């Protein structure tokens, strides 16, 4: 009985030490998420090194606590400062801060907390329901499907995360794949792009690269403006919303949870897009769309439920196909590898209890998030007044230690800073970070499986267009690329014109 296994894992986690560690990690996560400039990804990446010496379960408790806490923690500055602590809280600012300005900040935090909790639990339920089926489905994948899955993941991530041209997202993805080819070729043991340096034979370690990509540009961007205007709005009053008030929000929570989980499950896309998607859907379906952006509780709850439900969603492809659904899960994947856990379709058969274990940790982390979130409001408000000039250099030192701690290699620290500085320039030109990281992770899967598929089929590309699952992936890749071309936009425009013209003539 899977449900009994799940509750068995929950019971196994309820020990004083585990709960203490979980609450401490979740609190730290909330602080990481609350401090503008620090992200969930950076928090997990920095802590991965520290948790290396812990046993797998305890390491996961720490990392999941940080993850859940940080995604939620971004809400605090979004409401109190009008600055999203993390990108996933950007949609929260639209209604959270106007509510705070109206003197309803405490209640806004309460609604956001309950929405986040419901979102986390909704994502967990979908994870536990769908993961076994997707694992079974994944067992039918061969090298052909893995190649196309990796390519699709990078392309869709590039399309959805790019704030400017989708081409920039795709370029970032290709750069990631190229970086992943540095080091010894897994098929023939030949050194690629090593320039005769022994240190490069092991390739570019992706945790230092991720710290560089997500950490260094944040530090520089935080310090770029001459002065920061921080006016923390705090007020006392009832935080926890009344049941009658929240009950009205439940259908909205379920809709936002569904869309958040679905978006979270798309490779590399993550919590920020999930939050915006849920917010957008809530506005479209609301009876009072005019209130959105003016301080609407519906908008606030939709955004928060959306980003927290994406956590469960992002864990689905991570655990079943070894494809991270969001940047934080990309680091989590690295952490799992470090602890000898190999996510993928075989995980359900090799370690069937593992998905239940992750689910149990997510459940308890959600509870810890809600409790700590409601209790820590004043503490976070105080911490938010710490100037960036003080905490940014401390973060820089933590980035150095985080990059070094995995392999005790100074080259990793150099790689971290080098990639970080280059990526800062790309960030200024609106290149997204997520596709680069996903390219770095999925690059070896693409590289190895594409060549293996060709070798198995004597160099023939025919299986890529004859195997049913491959055809679906190929169609999705084609649509992803085609949907960004002017031809598609013209075609779409003419179809819409034809349909509306037809309607008019019918009337």
């Amino acid at each position, binding site marked *: 009985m899977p449900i009994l296994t799940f509750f068995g894992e929950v019971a196994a986690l309820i020990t004083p030490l585990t709960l203490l560690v979980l609450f401490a990690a979740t609190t730290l996560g909330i602080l990481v998420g609350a401090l503008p400039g620090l992200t969930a990804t950076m928090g997990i990446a920095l802590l991965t090194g520290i948790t290396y010496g812990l046993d797998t379960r305890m390491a996961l408790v720490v990392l999941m606590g940080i993850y859940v806490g940080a995604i939620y923690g971004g809400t605090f500055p979004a409401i109190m400062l009008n600055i999203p602590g993390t990108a996933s809280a950007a949609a929260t600012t639209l209604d959270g801060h106007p509510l705070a300005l109206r003197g309803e900040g405490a209640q806004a935090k309460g609604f956001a907390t309950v929405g986040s909790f419901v979102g986390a639990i909704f994502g967990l339920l979908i994870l536990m329901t769908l993961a076994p089926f997707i694992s079974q489905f994944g067992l039918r994948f061969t090298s052909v499907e893995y190649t196309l899955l990796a390519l699709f993941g990078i392309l869709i991530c590039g399309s959805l995360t790019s704030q400017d041209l989708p081409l920039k997202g795709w370029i970032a993805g290709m750069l990631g794949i190229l970086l992943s080819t540095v080091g010894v070729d897994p098929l023939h043991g030949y050194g690629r792009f090593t320039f005769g340096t022994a240190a490069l034979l092991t390739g570019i370690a992706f945790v230092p690269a991720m710290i560089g990509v997500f950490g260094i540009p944040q530090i520089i961007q935080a*310090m770029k403006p001459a002065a920061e205007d921080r006016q923390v709005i705090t007020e006392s009053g009832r935080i926890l919303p009344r049941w009658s008030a929240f009950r009205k929000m439940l259908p909205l929570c379920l809709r936002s949870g569904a869309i958040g989980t679905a978006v979270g499950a798309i490779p590399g896309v993550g919590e920020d897009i999930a939050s915006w998607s849920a917010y957008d859907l809530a506005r479209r379906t609301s009876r009072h769309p005019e209130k959105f952006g003016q301080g609407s509780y519906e908008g606030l709850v939709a955004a928060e439920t959306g980003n927290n439900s994406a956590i469960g969603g992002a864990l689905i492809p991570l655990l079943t196909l070894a494809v991270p659904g969001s940047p934080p899960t990309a680091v989590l994947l690295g952490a799992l590898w470090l602890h000898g856990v190999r996510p993928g379709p075989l995980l359900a058969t090799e370690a069937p209890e593992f998905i239940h274990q992750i689910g149990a940790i997510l459940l308890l982390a959600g509870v810890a998030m809600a409790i700590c979130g409601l209790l820590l409001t004043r503490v976070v408000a105080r911490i938010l007044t710490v100037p960036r000039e003080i905490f940014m250099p*401390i973060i820089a030192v933590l980035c150095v230690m985080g990059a070094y701690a995995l392999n005790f290699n100074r080259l990793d620290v150099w790689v971290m800073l080098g990639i970080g500085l280059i990526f800062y320039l790309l960030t200024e030109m609106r290149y997204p970070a997520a596709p680069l990281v996903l390219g770095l992770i999925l690059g070896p899967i693409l590289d190895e499986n594409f060549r293996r598929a060709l070798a198995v089929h004597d160099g023939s590309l025919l299986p890529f267009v004859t195997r049913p699952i491959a055809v679906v992936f190929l169609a999705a890749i084609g649509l992803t690329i085609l949907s960004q071309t002017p031809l598609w936009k013209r075609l779409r425009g003419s179809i819409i014109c034809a349909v509306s013209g037809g309607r008019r003539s019918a009337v």
Partner: protein
Amino acid sequence: MWLRKADLVTGVGISAFGTAALLLALNFRWDLAAVQQAGWYTAPGFIPVGISIVLILQGIGLSVHAWRNGGRWQRADLSRVGQALGSPAARRVAMVALLLSIYVFLMVGRLHFTLASFLFMAAFMWFFRAGVWWKILFIAAVASVAISFVFEGLARVPLP
């Protein structure tokens, strides 16, 4: 408009980077015995060559898009770039990059980590005027000792 002008240059840069990667990948061993046995498409350079070609095409595509959307450079633009590079924001960015580079490339591994981190944090806070000198020294000292203790003392991670 400035973004498109930057895109034009970046597109050329990406194509150049792709070309360099392509030339390097073409020089990988394509005649390994295992490759000859399994097929040329298993060669170590196969994927890097493919990705390099895609990058070259993407760079060209980006430049063409930028060119068509107002990314053409004029002589006056160069002086504006000079002005932007001399702006206070650019100087702050350069200073963060410089301090980080000095810390990572010159100090970490050569000085004791706690001392290197203390010097870096104190210099950073001093340059960006985080407070009076004794407050800066106090925070930098406490933070560097605390980070060293957490990693070395608690997590058993040797310091660089």
